[in-house]
């Protein structure tokens, strides 16, 4: 069964800490995405990557950065965590749009981050 795996289900961090959220996929997908999910706001795109070492800002990139050194791994970094970054973070992957197909995303189970 194909999977997107997020390394932590729950995290509690202190304000000002540097936080790493890890995501690994085993489907050889080109695209990977990081979203945050907040009640009433749905899913908002933070960053995405369409290839190794390539990244593009999404709708809400402020306060975040990403790293994609290998095709299967996409990391989200909170440089200095703040309480307004308390949220559910979802990683997803998909085939490259350039293949002419769009079968949607495969999602990980999410990481619920609390910043205190």
């Amino acid at each position, binding site marked *: 069964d194909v999977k*997107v795996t997020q390394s932590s289900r729950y995290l509690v961090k202190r304000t000002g800490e540097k936080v790493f959220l890890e995501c690994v996929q085993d489907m050889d997908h080109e*695209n990977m*995405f990081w*979203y945050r999910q907040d009640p*009433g*706001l*749905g*899913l*908002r*795109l933070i960053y*995405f990557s*369409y290839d190794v070492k390539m990244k*593009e800002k*999404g709708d809400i990139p402020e306060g975040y950065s990403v790293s994609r050194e290998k095709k299967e791994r996409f990391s989200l970094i909170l440089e200095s965590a703040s309480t307004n970054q308390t949220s559910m973070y*979802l990683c*997803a992957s*998909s*085939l*490259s*749009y*350039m293949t002419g197909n*769009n*079968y*949607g*995303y*495969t*999602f*990980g*189970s*999410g990481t619920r981050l609390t910043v205190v």
Partner: protein
Amino acid sequence: AQSVTQLDSQVPVFEEAPVELRCNYSSSVSVYLFWYVQYPNQGLQLLLKYLSGSTLVKGINGFEAEFNKSQTSFHLRKPSVHISDTAEYFCAVSELTTDSWGKLQFGAGTQVVVTP
């Protein structure tokens, strides 16, 4: 730019009754359309998608959706719900442009609560 509106934030429904979740979108180009479901404390799972062809799309767990291009809608229906259908449902749109990279824009979600 695309946008997605889910017209109901919460839909209460009795077990074995029908349910319809409404989704409207706006875009100046052709789109692909998706419905995802999120069960408590889990990631999102693809219910169904419309890419082309028949405007009536059948998905998993007895759900179906109809694409109406003139109304720019993609409403989700199920003729008879079960308690296990209690979840949050997200409508998503992907624009068919080369610079979209297959990104999905999500609605704010509709919480379905099924009671006996």
